């Protein structure tokens, strides 16, 4: 295994490196982690024209060899052969954007000093042509002294030529040369000279990107477009998911029916039907909504719009002591706080980064969607409030906005107390707009779906089964509710003393404990409790959770429960990531404390106000 040559894919951010990686390796890739740091390692297999296998590793994009973030540190360490958990690469593919040679060639020149076998993938040559640039690859190759292959990664063009060059590259070992770190302006000037020599014609270009920017970065139209996009995104989460959710519910009902029909009445059948099928099913049913949300986030990122959103938001973020840079991890946190918190590595200022990590859980992650969806579905009428805008979607948007406002307030306080520090800056590259590739979107969505289903199959199923057991035993005598008499019921009764003042009933107290493991479990916990309480009355047990809730909870109680989930501390995996990212228990514990306090107060206030105004 270790004899397979390792080739590193290196390049500036936005050079199309990942697209090239996807095009070269297809689905044969593995996402892992470098030991000790939270930088993801993307590796995959490809084969050369002569059949030899190659391992390709996609290194984090960087502008040079002087790291400004942990990601860039990994790239540097791998190239110098000092990264733990990575072999010293036998060769490099350096990806450059043909439309931005001035800048990208500087990194090529720096990498050339390493003295390793390398090939330059002159990527996005189609874009260069569209900009009216004609690049002479022969001149470029001669000036650089390394082979140059024109590619269009998104159209899989030039891949065969690239593989041919890789097959020819001498893989003779060379010792790493660590004397590269000279003043990079020297490389910059050399890069500009070579770029000018190799480029035949150089009109202004980027007409398409400039035209779009004039609209989406417009001081008035820009923010309107941004908020309209976010609004469409959240409406779509509900509107587009209805049909696929119906299919999953159908499949779930069919499974339960089959199990009841074929298995004899037994403890095992109850566990299967009430615990596993009802519990896990009530979570898996949200896969469509989660995928729709991730679809939009991947789309915004891949198209180049995400950075524009950061640009539009920078001023507002700076008002609470953050910058537009924090906007990207925070928006990712709407899908899941874990990738969001990991994405804070691109925030250079350590205090801004800490603040961003601490407020990331207030961005409503997709795991909370199941809880919101079920409660909203049960209590908010599916009414059209005019213009095709649904009331349910509006309430959902309101919950998201509440989380955002809470986050802003917390950031303001943190930046004046525990994370005090100078004003953070905001410098970021604004890449050209690109039509996202369906292939890249599918690979991204597949990875999310896999992670979610694995969670459903492991943590969520484990917690659901444990809860079912705790909620089923000991068996309650005639006339006593099972959900009160069981072990879980007694624990919940203890907790209810604390939670009753904010309007929580017994089942809710029971649901918030396992929800600590994973948010979605709150839904399956409620489902399990009601399924058990229904007992032999199979029909009542099988009734949709929404109907159960709307007949048992008051509106103020339901609203308080929603508010609890806006602020309540997130799942255990998030806490683990915060511990890893902040190197200790101090900040995760701080986060737990402040979130619990906020959740309690917000849920309480909601309940008291809603009761007072007679809802």
């Amino acid at each position, binding site marked *: 295994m270790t004899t397979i040559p390792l080739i590193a894919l290196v390049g500036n951010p936005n050079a199309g490196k990942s697209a090239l990686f996807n095009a070269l390796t297809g689905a044969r890739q593995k996402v892992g982690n470098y030991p000790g740091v939270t930088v993801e390692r993307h590796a995959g297999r490809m084969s050369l024209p002569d059949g030899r296998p190659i391992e390709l590793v996609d290194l984090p994009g960087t502008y040079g060899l002087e790291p400004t973030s942990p990601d860039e540190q990994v790239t540097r360490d791998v190239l110098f052969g000092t990264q733990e958990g990575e072999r010293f690469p036998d060769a490099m593919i350096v990806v450059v954007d043909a439309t931005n040679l001035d800048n990208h060639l500087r990194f090529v020149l720096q990498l050339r000093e390493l003295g390793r076998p390398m090939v330059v993938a002159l990527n996005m040559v189609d874009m260069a042509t569209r900009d009216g640039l004609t690049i002479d690859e022969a001149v470029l190759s001669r000036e650089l002294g390394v082979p140059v292959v024109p590619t269009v990664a998104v159209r899989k063009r030039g891949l065969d030529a690239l593989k041919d060059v890789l097959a020819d590259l001498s893989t003779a070992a060379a010792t790493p040369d660590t004397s590269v770190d000279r003043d990079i302006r020297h490389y910059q000037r050399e890069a500009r000279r070579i770029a000018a020599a190799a480029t035949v014609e150089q009109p202004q270009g*980027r007409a398409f990107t400039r035209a779009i920017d004039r609209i989406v970065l417009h001081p008035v139209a820009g923010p309107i477009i941004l908020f309209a996009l976010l609004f469409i995104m959240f409406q779509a989460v509900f509107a587009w998911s209805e049909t696929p959710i119906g299919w999953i519910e159908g499949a779930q009902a069919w499974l339960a029916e089959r199990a009841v029909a074929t298995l004899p009445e037994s403890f095992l059948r109850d566990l299967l039907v009430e615990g596993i099928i009802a519990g896990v099913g009530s979570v898996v049913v949200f896969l469509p909504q989660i995928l729709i949300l991730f679809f939009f986030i991947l789309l915004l990122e891949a198209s180049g719009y995400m950075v524009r959103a950061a640009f539009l938001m920078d001023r507002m973020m700076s008002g609470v002591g953050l910058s537009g840079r924090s906007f990207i991890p925070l928006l990712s946190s709407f899908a899941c706080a874990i990738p969001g918190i990991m994405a804070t590595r691109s925030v250079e200022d350590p205090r801004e980064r800490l603040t961003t990590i601490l407020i990331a859980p207030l961005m409503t992650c997709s795991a909370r969607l199941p809880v919101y969806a079920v409660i909203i579905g049960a209590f908010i009428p599916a009414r059209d409030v005019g213009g095709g805008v649904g009331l349910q979607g509006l309430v959902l948007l309101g919950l998201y906005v509440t989380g955002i406002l809470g986050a802003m307030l917390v950031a303001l306080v943190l930046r004046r107390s525990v994370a005090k520090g100078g004003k953070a*800056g905001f410098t970021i*590259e604004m890449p050209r707009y690109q039509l996202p590739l369906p292939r890249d979107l599918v690979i991204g969505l597949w990875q999310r779906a896999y992670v979610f289903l694995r969670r459903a199959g492991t943590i969520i199923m484990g917690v659901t089964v444990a809860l079912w057991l705790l909620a089923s035993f000991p068996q309650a005598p005639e006339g006593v509710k099972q959900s009160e008499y069981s072990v879980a019921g007694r624990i919940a009764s203890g907790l209810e003393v604390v939670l009753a003042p904010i309007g929580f009933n017994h089942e809710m107290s029971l649901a918030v404990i396992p929800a600590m493991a994973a948010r979605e479990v709150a839904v399956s916990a409620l489902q399990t409790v009601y399924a058990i309480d229904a007992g032999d009355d199979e029909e009542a047990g099988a009734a949709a959770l929404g109907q159960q809730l709307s007949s048992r909870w008051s509106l103020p109680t339901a609203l308080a429960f929603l508010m609890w989930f806006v602020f309540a501390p997130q799942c255990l995996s998030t806490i683990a990531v915060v511990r890893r990212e902040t190197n200790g228990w101090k900040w995760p514990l701080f986060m737990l404390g402040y979130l619990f306090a906020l959740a309690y107060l917000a849920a309480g206030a909601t309940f008291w106000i809603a009761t007072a105004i007679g809802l």
Partner: protein
Amino acid sequence: MRLSLDELPYRTPATVTEILWDSLSESDAKKLRNFGFDEGVAIEALHGAPFGRDPIAVRIGRMQIALRRAQARAIAVTPGSAAQA
């Protein structure tokens, strides 16, 4: 005519004449160098963000970047692209 990048009117091609590296923080200076900021490079201010027109979007060489006005003040420019390197 010599202006700071902060004062340069939008969509007016210009050339970087001087960068006051010492007035920038070390990390800001490193980032601007990474983006290719250097004397003699073509530059153009493109857009100002909403709510105060800060930060600004700038074309530097063949690249588009965003930076805050506080950093833009450290960059001296001359309108016109005569000095294009």
